[in-house]
């Protein structure tokens, strides 16, 4: 039953992700690839879509995958799939925060929570690092490990965008620039 599977998978993702932004990426990548819901390339494409639309990445990706997987049951199936996946990713946060809001004072100075966070923060860095490596393989070497002109140009593009990103240029500008340069590279190499 795809709808239950969507709900449970995204519930798990919501429950085990700490911190904002891309902290969710390693877990999403693992689940999405294991279930063959999206290809690695589609996942990276969608990160760009998510950066260019409002709202948190977690909500965007769960809505998208839910819709894609539910669409085999028609448009309503797509909407229901999106609903199940999004509800799944939201519910753990919602329940946990409701509990904590009641017991706030106890939680605030909890040594166990502080300790867990001191392990989780560096773990997220390592995990996203690993997600990056596997995605970089797809981006640069999706047609085998040969160094072609295309690979070199893409790598130069990556470095240029990295400089812009570090200089705090807005992600949407980076995506638009990359799109334009991608089109130019594509037609020139054709």
């Amino acid at each position: 039953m795809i709808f239950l599977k969507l709900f449970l998978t995204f519930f798990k993702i919501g429950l085990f992700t700490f911190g904002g932004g891309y902290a969710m990426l390693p877990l999403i990548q693992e689940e999405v690839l294991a279930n063959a819901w999206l290809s690695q390339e589609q996942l990276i494409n969608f990160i760009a879509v998510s950066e260019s639309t409002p709202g948190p990445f977690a909500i965007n990706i769960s809505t998208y995958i839910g819709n894609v997987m539910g669409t085999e049951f028609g448009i309503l199936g797509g909407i229901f799939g999106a609903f199940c996946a999004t509800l799944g990713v939201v519910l753990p946060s919602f329940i946990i925060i409701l509990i904590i809001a009641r017991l706030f004072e106890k939680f605030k100075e909890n040594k166990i929570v502080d300790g867990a966070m001191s392990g989780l923060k560096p773990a997220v860095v390592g995990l996203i690092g690993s997600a990056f490596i596997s995605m970089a393989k797809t981006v640069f070497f999706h047609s085998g490990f040969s160094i072609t002109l295309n690979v070199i140009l893409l790598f130069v593009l990556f470095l240029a965008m990295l400089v812009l990103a570090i200089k705090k240029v807005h992600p949407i500008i980076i995506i638009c620039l990359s799109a334009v340069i991608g089109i130019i590279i594509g037609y020139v190499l054709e």
Partner: protein
Amino acid sequence: MKQKFLLCLKLFITFFKIGAFTFGGGYAMIPLIQRETVETNKWISDEDILEVIAIAESTPGPIAINSATFVGFKVCGFWGSFFATLGVVLPSFIIILAISFVLAEFQDIKAVKYAFNGIRAGVLALLVKAIITMFKKVKKNIAAYIVMILSFILAAFTDINVIFVIIGCALFGIATSLLAKKEGKE
């Protein structure tokens, strides 16, 4: 009763606005949440918002959802949480739903394919930026470097489920901080 309903409605509209106007989500949302809940509506104090952010960061789930649920609860109990969270989720949900119906066909156009070839390289750059930002937030000590390297190796080169890596790192963090505290006492 009527007053409570109006407050919930206000929470819903405010968080809908926050969800609709922040690109990138999570941390990008925090300044807007602060302005809307502290300055504009005076629902919570400046100190409260810092606590909300600290809690949102140290509990599972997206920061946007955590802070909406928390602020909603502080303002108006359970239904406050419900409407604030619904509000922050709904804009993304609607927009992505609309996009995903056309995205697949759109991706088959040749120029779009070329564009996405470039975009994927740009996304990698954004990921590196995210890693650098998160690295800066880590309190640097030997234990933290061990966790960073170990979690990277386990995720990149073994088939171990990411969830076990996450649980393991949390337990390791608890163990090392308890040990450090014990040593501090003696």
